[in-house]
Structures are given as C-alpha cells and as structure tokens.
C-alpha cells in the first residue's frame, strides 16, 4: 500500500529535496536530519526521515495519530538515541549528545502533555530555562557573593521580559499548576524560549485551545520567529494553524515522510489525502 502511495503522491521526491523560505536561501540550515530512523525492538517507528529546516523557517510536522511525530521530536532532542541516521544542528553532528547538551546546543521543546514544574512559580519555571545562562556557580550561590545578586537580578529581568511577550509578567509569582490550561501551554513555550534555542520544537501547542486562543498563538509564534530570528518546528492537528503559519509542511505516516511542500502543495497531494481519509475502494 505504501508503495502505491508513493507512486501517486505529487511530491514524492522528498528524500533529498529541501525547501526553505526565500529569505533563508543564503543561510545555512539550522537543523538537518538525514536517514534518521529508530526501531523499538522489531518495530520500526521512524524510518528514512530526511528534513532540512531553514534558519528562520516555520515548519509543520503533521500526520495521523501514531504516525511517529512525537518520536521524531524525541529523536531530535535525544530523548531517544536514533538507531540510524544523522542529525546536524547548525552543521554540527549531535551524535553522542545528551538531552541536556543538545538543549544547550540550541534545540528547545515543549511537550504534548504539559510538563511544567508545577510546584515552582511561573518565574521560577522560566528561570529553569535560563539555567545555563545564569553565570554564577554553586559556591557563589551558597555564600551569596555580590555576583549572585547581580546575576539573579539579570535573570529576573530576562524572565519578566520573556513572560511579557505572552502578557504573563503579571502572573510571575503564581504557582505554575494554578494557571489556566492555555496559560500553562504558553508558559511552556516561554520556558523553552528561555533556554536560548536556535530552533524551537512545539508539540501540539494549540491542543485544547479555543479558536481565539489559537489565533493569538499563531501571532505569537510568528512574533517569536521575527523577534528571536529562530526556526520553529511544530506538530499540530489544527489545520487552520498549520496551513496559516507554516511555510513548509512535512507529512508523516507510518514513520515515513510521505510528502513535503508548501501548504497549498500539501493540501492537494493525493498521498496526503489518502493517508488522512483512506482510499476509495474501486468497483
């Protein structure tokens, strides 16, 4: 069946082809995955995953449930070690990196099911994101040397500045678990941004949001891209959001990319339509 899909797909040449927005043409790719794959026991969850993300591109990763989208995020962030393939971040191989070091190198993410530090305040959550940018050591912290106060003040200001992007500075001292759902999703994005990424991976950022919240989220994602000059890759089922802000879209089905292209290309791709809606039986 999958071979059939490839034959009928309009944009089959997905493997080598990299489409980036016009403005990123002259800049190196921020993220490249080549022949990426992972097996769980005998099951191949993701295979031959090839993408290239432009420096300030917003890319969507879509596909039916269980297609392996979150697995791709877990591979990119090294939660899973890939069985095959290479991931280049700014041209540098991430082989052997841990989730923590790959984050320091420039990949930050949010989670499908929100994973905030519930017992910490909103500001503290953001400061966890800032952890590697706060420049004092254990000793300075314990003995509260002048540098401690200087650096903590800087971190405080930075945290508020980031929260302000999402109009959340007023809730800085609230415990994270007392925030409403939509705000928790926003806080996850702020926390990820605080780590200073070059590419931000958003796993279903609009899940559970109402249309007006989604609208606002779309504006904010574009705002983040413009203000920080970073790339965004997002998994989302809300097609209005995906088609509205993504410049390129990759479609995943059964762990493989079945199509890649601009939103309009994807919308008219027979392989994609088949993956989502199934085939019409002949006769």
């Amino acid at each position, binding site marked *: 069946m999958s071979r059939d899909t490839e034959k009928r797909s309009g944009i089959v040449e997905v493997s080598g082809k990299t489409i980036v927005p016009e403005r990123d043409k002259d800049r190196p790719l921020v993220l490249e995955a080549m022949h990426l794959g992972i097996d769980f026991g005998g099951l191949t969850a993701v295979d031959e995953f090839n993408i290239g993300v432009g420096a300030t591109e917003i890319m969507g990763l879509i596909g039916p449930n269980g297609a392996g989208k979150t697995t791709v995020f877990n591979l990119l*962030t090294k*939660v899973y070690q890939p069985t095959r393939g290479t991931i280049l971040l700014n041209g540098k191989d991430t082989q052997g990196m*841990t*989730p*923590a070091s790959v*984050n*320091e190198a420039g990949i*930050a*993410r949010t*989670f499908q099911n929100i*994973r*905030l*530090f*519930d*017992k*910490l305040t909103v500001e*503290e959550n953001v*400061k*966890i*994101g*800032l*952890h*590697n940018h*706060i420049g*004092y050591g*254990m000793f300075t*912290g*314990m003995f*509260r040397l002048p540098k*401690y106060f200087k650096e*903590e003040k800087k*971190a405080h200001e930075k945290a508020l500045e980031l929260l302000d992007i999402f109009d959340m500075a007023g809730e800085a001292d609230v415990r994270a678990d007392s925030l409403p759902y939509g705000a928790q999703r926003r806080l996850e994005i702020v*926390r*990820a941004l605080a*780590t200073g990424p070059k590419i931000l991976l958003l796993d279903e950022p609009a899940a559970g949001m109402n249309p007006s919240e989604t609208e606002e989220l779309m504006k904010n994602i574009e705002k983040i891209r413009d203000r920080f000059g970073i790339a965004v890759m997002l998994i989302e089922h809300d097609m209005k959001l995906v088609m509205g802000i993504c410049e390129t879209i990759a479609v995943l089905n059964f762990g493989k990319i079945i199509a890649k292209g601009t939103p309009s290309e994807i919308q008219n791709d027979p392989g994609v339509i088949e993956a989502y809606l199934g085939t019409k039986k002949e006769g």
Partner: protein
Amino acid sequence: MLTYLINGISLGSVYAIIALGYTMVYGIAKMLNFAHGDVIMVGGYAAYCAMAYLGWPPAAAVVFSIAVCTMLGIVIERLAYKPLREATSLAVLITAIGVSYFLQNAALLIWSSNPKIFPNIFASMPPLKIGDAQISAVTIVTICANIIIMIALTLFTGKTKMGKAMRAVSEDKGAATLMGINVNFTISMTFAIGSGLAAIAGVLLCTAYPNLVPTTGAMPGIKAFVAAVFGGIGSIPGAMIGGILLGVIEIVARALVPAVPSDIFVFAVLIIVLLIKPDGLLGRKISEKV
C-alpha cells in the same frame, strides 16, 4: 521539664540535620539512602582522627570532616547508585543497605571495634543556666546549628539557580534535562550537600554521646529516617519538624517511663504515622489519576 524539652530539641536537631540528607536525596533521586547513617559515623571518625592523630583544632577538624563526607557522598552516588539510575527501586534500596554494611565493616577494619572517646569540642564554653536548669554548650550549639542550616538550606533551594534546578529535577527529570539541566550533576550535588550535613550531625552527635564505634551512625540514621517519614519525606521543613518532635518524644519518654527503652516510642511513632497519615505531617497527598 524545661531541661528535658531543651535536651529533646537538641537531640531532635541532630535527627533533623540527618533527616534533611535523607529527605533531599529522596526528593531528588527518589531513593532511600540507607547508607546515610553510616556517613555520619565516617564524619565522626574523620573529625576524631584530625584531632587525635593530626592534632588539629576542633574547627579545622569539623571542616575536614565535612570535606571527607561530601567527597564520600559523591563517590557513593557515583559508584553505587548512578549505575542503577534506571533500575527498580528495590535494587537501589538493597544496594543502599549493602553500602551501609560496607561502610560499617570498613570502619571496623580501620578503627577496630574499640570505642574511641570523642573529645568534647565545646569544653571551653560554659554551660548556660536558666533558673535551676543547666544547659550544656553542645546542646545550644546543636540547636543553633540546626536553625542556621535550616535557613541556609531554605534560601539555597528557594533562591539559587542550583536549588531551583534541584526542585525541577525532583519534579520531572525528563523535562529538566530537556531544559538543559545536567541531572547527574544535580543529583551529585544533592548527595554532596546531604553528606556534608551528615558530617556536621556526626560531630554534634559524637560530642553529645562521645562513644564512637563503627555502628554509631546506624541507630541515629534509622531514627532520622523515621523523622523524615514523620515530617513527610521529600519535604525540607517536614524533616526539620519531624526531627525535632521525634527528639522531644524520645527524651520526654525516657524521662517519664524510664523502665521502657525509649526507642520503642520512636518506632511506635513510625507505625502510627504510617497508619494514620502515611504522607507525614507536611507530606503532599498524591492522588492517583485514573
């Protein structure tokens, strides 16, 4: 009665300092480090050796003892527990008991079973008199040390980046590591701090009860564990309150019913807490989502 109460608070302060080590390690690494009590014993011996063999002044001996235990804590975590990070909690628990026996027997080999008499490092300080009650210097120092440690630790976990990282790791290791936090380093530091506190507890304990033997740490270690459970394991103020209450219960019980060994009351507390409020005094009730 006032004397009993103050002595109880003093003994309880030692339990509290030990319980802090238990509770911090449990909160962050989600494991019960039953070797923690024996780190106290090593702390006592380290201070003893520095004073008796090297002739160091007490203050230097205490610093030396803290340094030794901090290193010991890091080494124990690195060699015994880190390889088991993904193992079942039972495997880690049994390993911890193994480390405990290892430390006791190593101490037995090095220092033999003959008790060492720990010098009173506060001998120069006069006891305090309140009415007709007389409070020894070690009692006062213990209580003060406890208060200072409590304040310092609260500030550390609440206000510094390492403290925040610890709280983040204790909540969600996976999310913390994806935010760029080095989880292994954070766990190491937790063991370092817990073990450093154990050294302080060791010195205070040996000053109050000067017979130093390889099993010195075992009983206080277990009682501190009871204190940590009593207060709500994983909670820093809980360890403090649990420790002090347990110390007071033990001393008062010893005074009121001298015929019955006071340890019975201590462990009765554990049983009652587990029956009535298994989360401990300040423990958070964890409701399972279905």
